[in-house]
């Protein structure tokens, strides 16, 4: 984007660099200089920018303004739970007693941190109805990997080495099959039935001595609560398999149902979705893994335990799948989630799910006359439309979504789940006002009118954003992944 003066963001840091400028003053050496090593070991060239502090602040501030974010725009990105991220959560994580402690310092000097973690373990197992938990996993997909490794270790621990297949619904997030493959499983696809539930007949056919388990997202990525979920768990269990729960959509279920009571054996949570920690433009997240009694010995290391004298310590479960990250998990994210749960309590969490589901159904009801609703039933926290009625008039779901950007709304998730053509997945969350929802509904109705009256306007959207549609094919064909000094 072109702007005037030194607030221009087009020039990159290396292009702004002027020899001799500094952005930080480093303190002088306060002790005698020591002998230097063999000069052959030392680098002669360090290509980093030379810019002053005001330039740094102005450049990055101006870059930030090219983003849509929760704080600036309605962000109904399905499956991502873009809810308000409370500021107090950040402030608590920045307390020096949390932000400035070392992961390997003695337990006696980190009892406050360990107690917080221990309490959070209790909160999250209570919310999910599970018996055990490890919070060492650093994102949702990382939690999935830990969870399926636990399933593998469980079967192998029983000498049952034939279980090589993992059943995953056709509506699942891509991380599910990718995680199962990383854990060494063969992925088999489980079709959905006409109501968007797991196809029980197909599940029965897969349920055999080679089935390690099934990875189920609840509510499904169609935004639907699978009414057969207890039966699904029963069929997998009868075949000797375990049921993995992808907790990406847990915002719909807070205080409404517990995964452990439904029959799930192991599940991960996305604290950066359900528990309000900020996405940061793509992380950090945290993906704690909860499990039933029989899987506790296999949890990723470490977990927090309380000793007889009341002190807290980090321990490795007996048959742990091992360490899965460098230290003990994304502590700063865990502090934020703790703060959130502590602020809301049980009544607050239940109000979260109630209003998230109410807002999604409100949007569904207000738009289903003009946007095709492939599964016309009560939705949970998100609603999946198909833009095939618009496609019939020559405008795709992607183009409808891009046109929303012109009106100042972030796009919904598009073309996912894969089983809905021209999918537009809308997740409003509980933190939007009714006025915003009404404005969004009106805008989608207006765009539908544009599809009829001025389709090119929609087809070439967006028109008002810092850049227009970008040439992604060129980016992939001729990858330019870094700045290079002109020769």
């Amino acid at each position, binding site marked *: 984007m072109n702007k005037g003066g030194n607030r221009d963001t087009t020039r990159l840091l290396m292009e702004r660099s002027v020899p001799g400028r500094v952005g930080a003053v480093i303190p002088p050496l306060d002790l005698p200089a020591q002998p230097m090593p063999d000069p052959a070991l030392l680098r002669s060239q360090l*290509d*980093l920018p030379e810019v002053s502090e005001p330039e740094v602040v102005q450049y990055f501030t101006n870059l930030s303004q090219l983003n849509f974010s929760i*704080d600036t725009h309605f962000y109904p990105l399905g499956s991502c739970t873009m809810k308000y991220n409370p500021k107090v959560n950040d402030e608590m994580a920045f307390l020096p007693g949390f932000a400035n402690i070392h992961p390997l310092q003695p337990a006696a000097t*980190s009892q406050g941190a360990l107690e917080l973690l221990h309490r959070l373990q209790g909160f999250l197992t209570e919310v999910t109805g599970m018996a055990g938990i490890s919070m060492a996993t650093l994102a949702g997909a990382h939690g999935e990997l830990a969870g399926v490794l636990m399933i593998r270790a469980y079967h192998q621990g029983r000498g049952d080495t034939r279980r090589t297949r993992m059943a995953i619904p056709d509506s699942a997030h891509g991380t599910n099959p*990718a995680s199962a493959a990383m854990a060494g499983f063969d992925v088999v696809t489980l079709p959905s039935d006409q109501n968007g539930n797991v196809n029980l007949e197909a599940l029965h056919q897969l349920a055999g001595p080679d089935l390690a388990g099934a990875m189920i997202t609840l509510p499904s990525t169609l935004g639907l609560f699978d009414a057969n979920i207890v039966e699904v768990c029963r069929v997998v269990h009868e075949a000797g398999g375990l049921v993995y729960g992808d907790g990406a959509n847990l915002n719909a279920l807070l205080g409404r149902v517990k995964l452990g009571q439904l029959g799930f054996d192991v599940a991960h949570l996305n604290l950066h979705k359900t528990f309000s920690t900020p996405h940061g433009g793509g992380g950090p997240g945290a993906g704690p893994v909860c499990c039933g009694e029989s899987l506790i010995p296999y949890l990723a290391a470490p977990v927090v335990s309380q000793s007889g004298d009341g002190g807290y310590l980090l321990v490795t479960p007996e048959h742990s799948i091992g360490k899965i990250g460098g230290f003990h998990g994304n502590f700063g994210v865990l502090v934020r989630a703790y703060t959130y749960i502590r602020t809301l309590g049980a009544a607050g969490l239940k109000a979260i799910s109630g209003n998230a589901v109410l807002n999604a159904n409100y949007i569904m009801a207000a738009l289903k006359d003009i946007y095709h609703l492939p599964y016309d039933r009560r939705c949970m926290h998100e609603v999946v439309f198909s833009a095939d009625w618009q496609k019939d008039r020559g405008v795709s779901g992607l183009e409808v979504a*891009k046109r929303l950007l012109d009106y100042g709304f972030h796009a919904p998730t598009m073309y996912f789940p894969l089983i809905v053509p021209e999918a537009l997945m809308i997740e409003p969350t509980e933190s939007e006002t009714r006025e915003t929802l009404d404005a969004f509904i009106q805008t989608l109705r207006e765009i539908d009118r544009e599809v009829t009256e001025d389709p090119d306007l929609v087809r070439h959207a967006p028109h008002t954003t810092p850049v227009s549609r970008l040439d992604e094919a060129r980016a992939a064909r001729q990858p330019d992944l870094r700045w290079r000094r002109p020769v």
Partner: protein
Amino acid sequence: MTPDAHFQSHYIPNTEQEQAEMLATLGLKSLDELFLDISDQYRNPFLDLPAPRSEQEIHRELSSLASRNRPLNSGPSFLGAGSYHHFVPSVVKAIMTRGEFLTAYTPYQPEVSQGTLQVIYEFQTLIGNLYGMEVANAGMYDGATSLAEAVLMACRVTHRQQIVVSERVAPAYQQVIRTYAQAQGIEIRTVGDWEPEVNANTACLVVQYPNFFGEIEDLSRHRQATRQQGALLVVSADPMAMGLFNPPGHYDADIVTGEGQSLGIPTSYGGPYLGLFTTKGQYIRQMPSRLVGKTVDTQGRTGYVLTLQTREQHIRRERATSNICTNEALYALAATIYLAATGKQGLRQVAELCYHKAHYAAARIKQLAGYWLPFAGTFFQEFVVQCPADPATINRRLLEQNILGGLDISQPPYRSPLPPGVDRGMLLCVTEMNTREDIDALVSALGEFSQ
């Protein structure tokens, strides 16, 4: 059953009246009716959580918990081992807490995410420069997982299933490699002297630079050993050491990873951190995680997009190069701001401060009777000291004087790679945060145990 009493949270705008009106448009009377797909048996379980608290009460509770931890800056601290106490300029936090960066999602809609995307492109450039490597990705979870993914990538690139790992790689990193690699049937050989172990079946040799015990290893020797066998050289390198020492790219390493925490990220009890991941241009299609590329829009203006996404899980599913999705973008931003502000001159200066202060400390401790340094080679900011007493005992005594000592490496898993006779080892780390007074206090306290 009776419906729940209305709960008006400050995070939820809908009032009881608004809820009732919205429910009426659906022909419903209570929120509970939205959940009737859940059978009665399982719906509305009792949730045993503490009662909600006001923000003021939250501050009191969390501050009280935080006060029971000892922050690194509350007294001299000499603990490193993969998490380092470095100075973070104010600009880093000021920018990364801007809502436009903090509360944005992964930049899947490039037209409204140019801020995040351009930052990642900057990040890829600066990290590539730092390591002397052609391409960097948008980041991984942390240094340990980044190294584990490098191992998986080396196996894909070479179509080999055996790796050789130096026993002087951080034990935690070795454990994470094991967790990631074992399910894929990759054979791991952990060795002290790797040259005879690297053979025609070896996918890669994995080393750390500086290694866990602080030594600057001879990467040209590792390069030679791997090249002869067609194996890749995978190096996990501390980015701060790159301010002073030759980067692994200088030695033609194939994949260079690292823990980015040193670059403007607080120690925060071990996370969130930032995995760095770089490689040669020829391997980009085998890389894990996101990549940002430069392109043009329909009007010919420069813009940035996520690219080569056919490697990734949301497109390729079980055939993806990795399952990684959400990673650490906010901390890639922090590292980029840190590198911009600290800059070409500053990073060298900080690295030199760490070097001189660590060497001053080592030289003084070496003079104490009963202490000796088992490794004679070049080191950066960490070194091993063999102590005259049990390191745990020494550390307890240091803590009484409000000094956080080094890592006790006299126990498994740290001890086995150490030379014979090093049975009371302590791994000390000295950075620019330690003043001469801090170091002198440490030396004086250690002197109490001199024999």
